């Protein structure tokens, strides 16, 4: 291979390091020689060349066949009466056809370029970072001319009105984000206030504990030893999705368990937060808020499936393993005159993960 002609020779002569270069070296690579050119099998063996050519056009024709197959599959495997298997076959066979069609084009093209097209090596030197003085002058001139011809600098009214339009176009975005901030009113003093909303759930004194999702209230006598109930406030089941059902449920979900009374070790001041071994804890993990509901009825461990935090229900849901920072909040419960389990109050601390203003 001969490289006697350097296409950038004239640039090289006037080359100066640009001011942005930390270290100016005259020519970092001296004579980067190429390894000797190696003949391919297709270059030396005409039979191999014939084979490669055959492979490439076979692949392209295969692609044609696969495209036709995809169209045929659309007719052979129609989606009928919503049968799952027909949808599956339809997707599968059309997809296989299209995939094979595209893949064969790609493989054929690559094989063509590698085995058949010329593979002579050549050097393409990088040009200098700084443009030539003539080029720079030409571009200054182009800008000045554009300014002159458009009147951008001269027609101040148009220019300023464009600036005004650009600034105004950002305002709708600001308005939308403003909607995330507190928007309290006399009727709803805590609307959108994250600190208040994260501090309070739907539970209040006298809310009945009910089955999730049916909303059927639970009697204390229903909760046999070793059971676990997935619980929502009775009022929650009456909410529509438009009324914040999911938002409220995300905070109010509770797991209700019954342990042997002698295995419970309530913290001081919490002795009357349960009823005859029945205790209720928030199901929202204090780490990042996954539902903690993998309850082991013999060890009384609760496991969070997301990051393996473990809580010991017999000791106030203290953290015994994993990344959670705090025990699960306990919902104080009692039994009303009809025998239903009711909340004594809301949670005494915010449920779920930490947030900036949590004290």
């Amino acid at each position: 291979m001969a490289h006697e002609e350097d296409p950038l020779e004239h640039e090289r002569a006037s080359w100066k390091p640009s001011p942005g270069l930390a270290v100016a070296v005259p020519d970092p690579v001296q004579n980067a020689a190429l390894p000797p050119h190696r003949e391919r099998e297709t270059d030396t063996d005409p039979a191999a060349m014939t084979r490669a050519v055959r492979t490439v056009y076979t692949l392209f024709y295969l692609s044609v066949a696969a495209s036709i197959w995809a169209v045929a599959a659309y007719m052979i495997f129609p989606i009928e009466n919503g049968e799952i298997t027909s949808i599956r076959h339809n997707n599968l066979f059309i997809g296989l056809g299209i995939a094979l069609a595209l893949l064969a084009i790609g493989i054929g093209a690559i094989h063509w370029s590698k085995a058949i097209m010329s593979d002579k090596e050549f050097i393409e030197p990088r040009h200098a970072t700084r443009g030539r003085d003539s080029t720079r002058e030409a571009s200054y001139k182009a800008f000045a001319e554009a300014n002159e011809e458009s009147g951008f600098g001269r027609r101040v009214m148009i220019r300023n009105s464009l600036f005004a339009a650009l600034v105004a176009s950002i305002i709708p975005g600001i308005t939308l984000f403003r909607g995330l901030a507190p928007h309290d009113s006399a009727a709803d003093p805590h609307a959108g206030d994250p600190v208040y909303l994260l501090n309070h759930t739907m539970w209040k004194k006298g809310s009945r504990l009910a089955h999730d999702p049916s909303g059927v209230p639970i009697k204390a006598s229903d909760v046999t030893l070793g059971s676990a109930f997935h619980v929502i406030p009775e009022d929650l089941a009456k909410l529509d999705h438009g009324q914040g059902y999911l938002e409220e449920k995300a905070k109010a979900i509770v797991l209700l368990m019954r342990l042997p009374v002698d295995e419970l070790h309530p913290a001081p001041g919490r002795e009357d937060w349960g009823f005859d071994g029945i205790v209720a804890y928030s199901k929202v993990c204090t780490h990042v808020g996954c539902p903690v509901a993998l309850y082991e009825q013999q060890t009384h461990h609760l496991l969070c499936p997301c990051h393996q935090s473990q809580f010991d229900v017999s000791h106030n849901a203290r953290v015994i393993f994993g990344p959670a920072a705090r025990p699960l909040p306990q919902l104080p419960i009692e039994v009303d005159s009809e025998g239903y389990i009711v909340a004594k109050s809301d949670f005494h601390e915010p449920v779920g993960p930490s947030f900036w203003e949590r004290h």
Partner: protein
Amino acid sequence: MARENKRRASGRRSPLAAVVLIGVGLLMTGGIYAGASAAVASTDTSTTKTALTVDDGKKLFQANCATCHGMDLQGTANGPSLFGVGELSVEFQVATGRMPLAMQGPQAPQKPVQFTEDQIRAMAAYVQSVSPGPTYPDQQTLDGKGDVATGAEIFRTNCAMCHNVAGAGGALTEGKYAPALDKTSALHMYAAMVTGPQNMPVFSDLNLNLEQKRDIISYLLYLQQHESAGGFALGSLGPVAEGLFIWIFGIGSLIGVTVWITAKSN
């Protein structure tokens, strides 16, 4: 022949050699595994049909269970008392091979069943006679003709966190696990809910009533009998299995293609 020699001389293998070698290796591994698992499956216990009485059950219990559970079901240091467990507990533990326990561990694993159905029924009858508890359900609860959609919803709320939404099972703490439900019989699903074996909470009829249990069983039977709608289920383990699959096979094949594109042609 001349070409063969030329290949040898240039030290070049056929490009298909590696593919063939990998294929042979995979076939051999698969063949040995299939042979081994068939051998394990064929060791089946022979059944003898005889009507057994509660007395026979008592003898069987004393011979096989009393070492750990006590002669009077009172329990020992090695095993819990069986007061109040009832016949369904015996059915679940023995007929799934969990009992008799081979050794103490975090959880009793399923093993080949050690007793015939008659023997299990006899032991269950004996335990029920001295320590009454949950009993066999009527066939209607197990018929799998409940509401599959309702069953799925109840399952998702109450069971899926441990057993996985598709009943594929999952890990618990310290070596314990919720077993997969893809081969569990309707009777044993019911028994597990009612008796709360090992660390599973109890779901009594006051928590999930008979109709709801029937729906759950119908949902699980539906999963067992129908192929997965989404193609390869990959164990129904969700993002972990799917991510691992795409990581290894997707990125692996991308790397392979990249290497092929940039490699020099021979």
